[in-house]
């Protein structure tokens, strides 16, 4: 497991520049933040990056103090903020978009896959289950019936597989849900309000406030300007570990291009599709349809989609095109893919409308308000979860979550609390897909429900640390686990 170059001795300026400079010599910056002119740059990249500037020192308003501040209102942040607040900590949540839910709402990743293991036993519950229960109350979730989980009955598997490939990923039916993004946004804000989380939307948490290696709070930008929240514990739930470059924490960034998580996605929904007509056509002309899919892909479009399956959404399909990229936190790449995604969305829809029966009167109803990201920085924590741990049959002593494994040989994956604690930094937890792991393990366990689990554990641990005034590394693990169990988390 090799650490990438960027993870060693990175500074904040360099982080900013990294996104702009590619293929040029890395720039050395002095510890004091003195800007040194960029050397050995080609004329072309010099245009892209004209060295650095020194910003003036300034006074920043502290808008609030709290026990716990959570940066990022995606699945990890939701888990963390809710668990912290419910465990009695005064909690602030900072979210850059106008909604909560991150990938699960704004990213239109409206699928929570694989909450059961291969035997159909539910392994992921906690806040994820609470969310689905609330969605159920509004008839805004679709998933295989509980009595069918784990069934290997061929007809059932075939039925659910036709509904969604996520409902039967191997040869058995599992608990995976399609969910409604808009209802989820509402539910999440309800849950925050009920738990008493002070939430800031439209607020981009950009930088932790550090005192040596102690995290003291976070600075965020918004229409109200640059403000600070001071807190006893800072939880980075930014997904990409956006706070990490400003701390002493090390992190890794390399993701093998063959891994799922190396792709960005640009998701969108097509409405008013006559799916019955489409299904009939597909049944009678499977080969012709396959030929058309070949064609649309050659044009640059996307072949295939998932059906929404949600109540009263019988005419809605979901498209999830993937985009390979150099980095998922490089603003140039993000812009490139955003442009490309929209362009190819039009190509795809035009083709479907013209060539695929059932799509004649369809229209694009929605595209993701946040680009779909799958992998960014990964913190180097007190424990790095690796491929080896996927084969681990005995739980860690500090297991805070169980994830259904990838195959029959490795049915369960135990997650240790230590993989949330960055090395060399105090009063900080990483509760999102940036948890401490190698690329392969991260690829397997960085989905929405995984992040909620990690968040829930981090939030609970943070509240416990605040309450008992014990360092995050030294909290009573038994108490943490029993508290999680009380919250409905499934533990060994």
């Amino acid at each position: 497991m090799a650490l990438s170059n960027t993870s060693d001795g990175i500074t904040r300026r360099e982080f900013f520049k990294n996104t702009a400079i590619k293929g040029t010599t890395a720039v050395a910056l002095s510890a004091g933040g003195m800007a040194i002119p960029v050397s050995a740059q080609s004329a072309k990249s010099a245009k892209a990056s004209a060295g650095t500037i020194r910003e003036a020192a300034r006074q920043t308003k502290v808008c609030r103090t709290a026990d716990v501040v959570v940066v990022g209102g995606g699945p990890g942040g939701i888990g963390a903020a809710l668990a912290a607040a419910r465990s009695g900590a005064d909690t602030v949540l900072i979210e850059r978009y106008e909604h909560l839910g991150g990938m699960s709402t704004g990213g239109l990743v409206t699928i929570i896959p694989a909450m059961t293991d291969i035997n159909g036993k539910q392994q992921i519950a906690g806040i994820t289950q609470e969310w689905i229960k609330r969605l159920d109350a509004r008839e805004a979730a679709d998933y295989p019936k509980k009595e069918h989980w784990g069934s290997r009955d061929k007809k059932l598997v075939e039925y659910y597989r036709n509904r969604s490939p996520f409902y039967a990923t191997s040869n058995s039916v599992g608990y995976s849900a399609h969910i409604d993004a808009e209802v989820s946004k509402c539910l999440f804000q309800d849950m925050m309000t009920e738990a008493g989380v002070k939430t800031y939307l439209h607020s981009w948490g950009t930088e932790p406030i550090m005192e040596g290696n102690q995290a003291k709070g976070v600075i965020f930008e918004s229409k109200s300007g640059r403000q600070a929240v001071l807190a006893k514990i800072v939880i980075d739930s930014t997904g990409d570990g956006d706070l990490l470059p400003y701390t002493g924490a090390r992190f890794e960034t390399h993701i093998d291009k063959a891994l799922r998580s190396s792709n960005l996605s640009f998701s969108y929904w097509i409405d008013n599709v006559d799916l019955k007509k489409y299904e009939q056509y597909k049944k009678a002309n499977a080969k012709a349809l396959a030929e058309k899919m070949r064609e649309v892909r050659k044009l640059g479009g996307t072949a295939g989609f998932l059906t929404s399956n949600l109540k009263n959404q019988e005419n809605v399909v979901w498209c999830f095109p993937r985009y390979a990229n150099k980095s998922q936190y490089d603003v140039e790449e993000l812009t490139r893919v955003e442009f490309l995604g929209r362009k190819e969305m039009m190509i795809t829809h035009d083709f479907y409308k013209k060539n695929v029966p059932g799509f004649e009167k369809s229209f694009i109803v929605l595209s993701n308000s946040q680009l779909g990201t799958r992998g960014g920085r990964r913190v180097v924590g007190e424990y790095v979860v690796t491929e080896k741990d996927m084969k681990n049959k005995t739980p860690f002593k500090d297991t805070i979550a169980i994830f259904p494994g990838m195959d029959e040989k490795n049915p369960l994956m135990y997650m240790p609390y230590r993989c949330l604690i960055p090395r060399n930094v105090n009063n900080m937890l990483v509760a999102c897909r940036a948890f401490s792991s190698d690329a392969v393990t991260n690829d397997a366990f960085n989905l929405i429900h995984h992040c909620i689990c990690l968040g829930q554990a981090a939030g609970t641990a943070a509240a416990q640390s605040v309450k008992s005034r014990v360092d995050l590394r030294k909290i009573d693990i038994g108490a943490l686990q029993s508290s999680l169990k009380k919250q409905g988390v499934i533990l060994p």
Partner: protein
Amino acid sequence: MTSEGRIYVRLGCFLLAILMLSPFPFWIDSSRVFVQASSFVVIGTILAGGTIWVGSILGLAFAAIALLRKRWFCRYVCPVGLLLDAVSGVRSPAGTWWKRSPPIGEYIVLLTAAGAILGYPLFLWMDPLAFLNNAFSVYRATGVLAVLASLYGIVLLILLQITSGDLWCARICPLGATQDLLGKAGSFCRNFRKSGQVEPGGRTARGKAVWAGRRMFVAVAAGLGLSLAARKIGAARSDHAPLRPPGAIEEHEFTGLCMRCGNCMRACPSGIIHPDAGQSGVLGFLSPVVRFENDYCRNDCHACTTVCPSGALQRLNLEQKNSYVIGTASVDIFLCLWGISECQACVNACPYEAIKIHWDEEAYESFPAVDPAKCNGCGACESVCPSGELKAVKVYTTGSVPPGAAG
């Protein structure tokens, strides 16, 4: 032995046969040994493959008895014979129009034996014990075709019995005819030793003998010719041959040596072996093919390779079976769901790590791809592929992977 005594022996043999073929056999190898009790099958397979198993001893023993006692197996042992007699008993014997017809069965045996020498025993599938054995596969049959494929032999025999009386037993049955030929050979040898004469008696008899000899010669020649032709047809098709169960010998010999006894289909716990209708041409009609739409060839099982009575499926141990190449998987990236739902079902299902997500720098894209060196065509990937009716990952006969699917 009195005829009453004989009936008890026959009933006993019949019950034993039922026991051997029942879904809950008392002996794991019983259905294989059952078919090997046929001298026709054993002689055919030995001529074709040169392999002798412990089970073959039974067939050879009955062959030895046939040298001395005319159709002893038919009279005392054959369960099919008893079944057909019972059919006649229920319904009084029908037509005897065939009484003056030539001994078709003997020609069948000669053709088969001659073909067997070239590795293609033409009519091995006509063995009555294989018919009966096959009928007992019906409880594992899925689909109308599979039911028909398992019952066709025994149903035909019963229909023949109802319409034409003993036609099968007396004139067609190659197992009976094998005994007849052995009996003739036996008495010829005995006479030869007694009299020292090659030819027995008068002109007419001699003429008959010469005539019979000629016919035999023609039959043998025809058998050689036909089997050569069949092998040639099979060889021409071998690139497009259907997927065969593990242990299958070369396609151009397989369709001949396989007698459609149904043992492999019955033995397969995954139920992936099916009778073929069309994929392998006329010569391969009802021969076993492997399909992965529901399940795959498990890497802890080699059952089918242990039950074949003819050696069309070679006996393989588990390790040999897992390295036997049934076919090669290939991914059609245009049907693959990796692109739309991050599906990696095939990657996770492959027991041999032969499918991995592959990054293509040129296309700036990643997709599942198969490493043919690691793939044995077990079909785990195909069976889990959720892409719908047209599977994105499919196992193809090695060497016939379509260019469109090269992924």
